[in-house]
């Protein structure tokens, strides 16, 4: 054993007395000092990751408690965010409503379309085109959210006005599709924008799952004379159901936490609009980004802590959604590699 170590982090392995090897043999673990140190480092990194997660939860909770004890309103029901003054009064209701509603709108729009695209890539597109399209969709997942925000504010918003008037004409009687004012920078616009943003995520996960459907199932269905749609309905969709659910939840998680695109497009106000098309409302992440500069200016206020408290709510929300998605994936072991 005359191996010279090259890694600076690991000391040279000592000449092993045979006894140590025997000891190690009984447990099956590493016995050489090099091995032991390497294992310690890699296990340490794993533990460090867990520590970071725990630290996030702890630090946010500590700061949030500080803000909540000074809050003069009710954190759950106050429709206001005035945390910077001497009498802080703030509540999360409006922000939570905006976050959940815009994310749900995004899901409702994006998931069916994403399943369609995933099916298009896996089952409909001409072969040479399919991999190129899949590749393009993956590239689009890398477009930064602020660029979506810029595009949303300067291109999408002006083009939605006509559509909203149309909605108002035909669906205005429902109340939620009423449209009253001039700039459509509303929660519904955010929903559309978020849908476009999470589309690549949901598509690529569903596509992976659709490609894993056993060929035998599909060929058996085809041999029985099924049309392509019947093949999809009978073999592809049942096999991919849990994959689709977890893909949607991963998309939901991304939509809930999206910050800059919302901060750029939404015109905010602290009340809950009965109509989805009218400007107003806000989301948790957007409120943190937009309200941050103001909150730091005032000495001794709990402004930043109040924002951290709302961040904690967002953290817990995404933790639940992502945890649930991952558990659904984990139940089907073969999907574990579906998403990076």
């Amino acid at each position, binding site marked *: 054993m005359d191996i010279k170590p090259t890694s600076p982090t690991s000391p040279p392995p000592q000449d092993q007395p045979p006894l140590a090897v025997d000891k190690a043999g009984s447990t099956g673990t590493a016995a050489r000092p090099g091995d032991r140190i390497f294992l310690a480092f*890699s296990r340490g*990194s*794993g533990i460090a990751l867990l520590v970071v997660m725990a630290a*996030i939860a702890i*630090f946010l909770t500590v700061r949030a408690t500080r803000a909540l004890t000074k809050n003069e309103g009710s954190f759950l029901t106050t429709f206001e965010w005035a945390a910077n003054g001497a009498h802080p009064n703030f509540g999360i209701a409006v922000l939570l409503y905006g976050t959940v509603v815009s994310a749900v709108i995004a899901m409702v729009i994006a998931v069916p379309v994403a399943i369609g695209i995933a099916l298009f890539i896996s089952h409909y597109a001409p072969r040479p085109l399919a991999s190129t399209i899949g590749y393009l969709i993956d590239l689009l997942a890398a477009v930064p959210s602020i660029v979506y925000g810029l595009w949303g504010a300067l291109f999408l918003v002006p083009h939605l006005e006509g*559509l909203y008037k149309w909605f108002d004409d035909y669906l205005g009687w429902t109340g939620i599709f009423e449209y009253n004012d001039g700039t459509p920078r509303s929660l519904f616009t955010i929903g559309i924008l978020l849908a476009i943003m999470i589309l690549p995520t949901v598509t690529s996960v569903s596509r992976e799952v659709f490609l894993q459907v056993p060929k035998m199932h599909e060929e058996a269905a085809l041999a029985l004379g099924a049309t392509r749609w019947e093949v999809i309905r009978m073999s592809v969709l049942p096999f991919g159901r849990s994959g689709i659910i977890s893909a949607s939840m991963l998309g939901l998680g991304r939509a809930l936490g999206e910050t800059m695109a919302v901060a750029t497009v939404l015109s905010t106000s602290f009340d809950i609009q009965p109509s989805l098309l009218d400007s107003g409302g806000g989301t948790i*992440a957007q409120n943190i980004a937009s309200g941050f500069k103001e909150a730091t200016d005032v000495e001794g206020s709990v402004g*930043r802590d109040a924002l*951290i408290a709302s961040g904690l709510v967002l953290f817990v929300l995404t933790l639940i959604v992502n945890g649930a998605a991952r558990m659904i994936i984990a139940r089907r072991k073969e999907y574990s590699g579906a998403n990076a």
Partner: protein
Amino acid sequence: MSNITVNKSADPASAPQLSTLRQARLPWWGPAAPLALALIIGCGGGALIGLESKIQWGLISAILFVVFTYLLTLKVEGRRQAKNQLATSLVWVCFLLAVIPLASLVYETVDRGSTVLDGYFLGHSMDGTQRMLAGGGVYHALIGTLEQVAIATLIAVPIGLLTAIYLVEYGRGKLAKTVTFFVDVMTGIPSIVAGLFILSLWIIMLDFSYSGFAGAMALAILMMPVVVRSTEEMLKLVPNELREASLALGVPKWRTIIKVVLPTAIGGITTGVMLAVARIAGESAPIVLLVFGNPAINNNPFEDAQSSLPYYIYEQWQNGNEPSYDRAWAAALVLIAFVMILNLVARGIARWKAPKTGR
């Protein structure tokens, strides 16, 4: 529209039968006629009634196309085939619906961004430039982005790499399972939450100032799980025979990992790291909280506020005038080009170096 012909070959029952027993079929150009009709009615009708937004024209055309192809197939080929046709049209419509906004995004960015993008723009900062006037550039933001991303990579890659090695090479039992689960959950942490965490730890509690380094730490938190996941996948692809051969020669496990396993997977690992870099380079939320923005050039990431490309875009958008919008689009173009080049290079490496797999 090749879907009908593909349909025929995908339906093995129809091929060997006698022609008298075969169902009536639409010719290969079947969907083209309804498509043309739908487009004419959708756009022409839309223009006649005076619908303002082209989005409406498109939506009307799409719905008409789906209905027309369904009815036509129902008439000629029967109910089951019509359902099949309905699904096919819907899938195509979904695809087109998704491609249009994404294409428009890329087109707008390139079109509007290229108006002010030149050497001057890349080589100057915003220091001393009037917000309302044209001029100024993106140099300070470029420096900021490069430094913050580099520091984040230096923090995240070693930890991520070692964690992945632990999970694949050593990980058994409860700890490994817990780490795997939390790595997965961690990929979903909103970037603003990572920013808030560093804010409360580094700036509020330890009382450091806003700096590029603080932002880089938040970016590292976002990057770590991505690196772990991709490295893990790559290490799993390394054939066990290689490990066994090395161990059988008496090579210690740690040297086997460093000298055999990692070099085999290095292509995929590099790809994963570069994709992770591309992801965090576009993050703006933690930058708003931790780096704070600075119109002047600050080359030192450890002291005082910096800027970054995503932050610069946000800042220019907030200025709310045409010269600023132009600058924002140009910066967006620079950022997209940066991210896309990283992506393309990463995928090139992946294709060139990837260990051969079944699929």
